[in-house]
């Protein structure tokens, strides 16, 4: 492994560790939800197939992509918890804005925890839909990190 490759591997490992910690922290702090990390699995493609997804690109010292995917009912519940709005009062715009903000906080926290300079985050993108599938080409292998909130699954796809 060259020196450059070693450095890239350090950045990747730091971001991944920061990401796992931040996902748990963001859900606990902002949504009073205790979630548990279940582990990771390699994925062939970066496919966000849930009904509620937030996506952020990473540019600079390391290029990459992070996506957070939840079922719609969980997305509504989380947005309800972080805003204090009752679920029936949450409009589509609130749901999209909330899931984008969730992805934003997670990636911002990941970046801060990893302490890597020269990383830029793209503005968050929210995808809400019954049958939406977001398929993104990536430069690095894709991993799916799984978290559980009670019986619900939160999937975080990452390619860094």
């Amino acid at each position: 492994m060259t020196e450059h490759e070693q450095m890239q591997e350090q950045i990747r490992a730091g971001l991944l560790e920061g990401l796992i910690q931040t996902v748990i922290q963001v859900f606990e702090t902002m949504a009073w939800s205790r979630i548990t990390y279940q582990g990771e699995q390699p994925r062939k493609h970066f496919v966000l197939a849930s009904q509620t997804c937030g996506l952020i690109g990473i540019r600079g010292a390391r290029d990459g992509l992070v996506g957070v995917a939840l079922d719609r009912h969980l997305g509504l519940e989380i947005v309800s918890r972080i805003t204090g709005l009752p679920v029936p009062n949450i409009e589509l715009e609130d749901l999209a804005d909330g899931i984008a903000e969730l992805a934003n906080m997670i990636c911002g926290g990941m970046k801060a925890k990893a302490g890597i300079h020269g990383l830029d985050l793209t503005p968050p993108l929210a995808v809400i839909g019954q049958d939406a599938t977001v398929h993104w080409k990536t430069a690095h292998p894709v991993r799916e990190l799984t978290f559980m909130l009670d019986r619900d699954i939160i999937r975080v796809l990452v390619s860094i």
Partner: protein
Amino acid sequence: MRVLIVDDSSVMRKIVSRGLRQAGFKIDEILEAGDGQKGLATQAQKKCDLILSDWNMPNMDGLTFVKELRKSGDKTPIVMVTTEGGEGKVAEAVQSGANGHIKKPFTPDTLRSTLGQFFK
């Protein structure tokens, strides 16, 4: 006490607004603006006592908002609320006239300890 929240995310404005109330601050009115330009216009009209501003916003970002407000002679305390925790950016904001920085995610306790000095 009147507080202005400047953020392009309506959900984030609700989160900050809720956090301020949960922190127990005595607030008469919370006003909201969706970007720096609207923040300047709201502040010119309503003269708030404390401003909480996001960093990345369309039309006018948080840093430009701070600079413009200070250029106009307004000395209202401004606290940046952002995911970007980079020391350089915080230093730049403070140099431009911001009075503090809160990193998301935050708890009511964080708000209390960071903003308590501005609520007297």
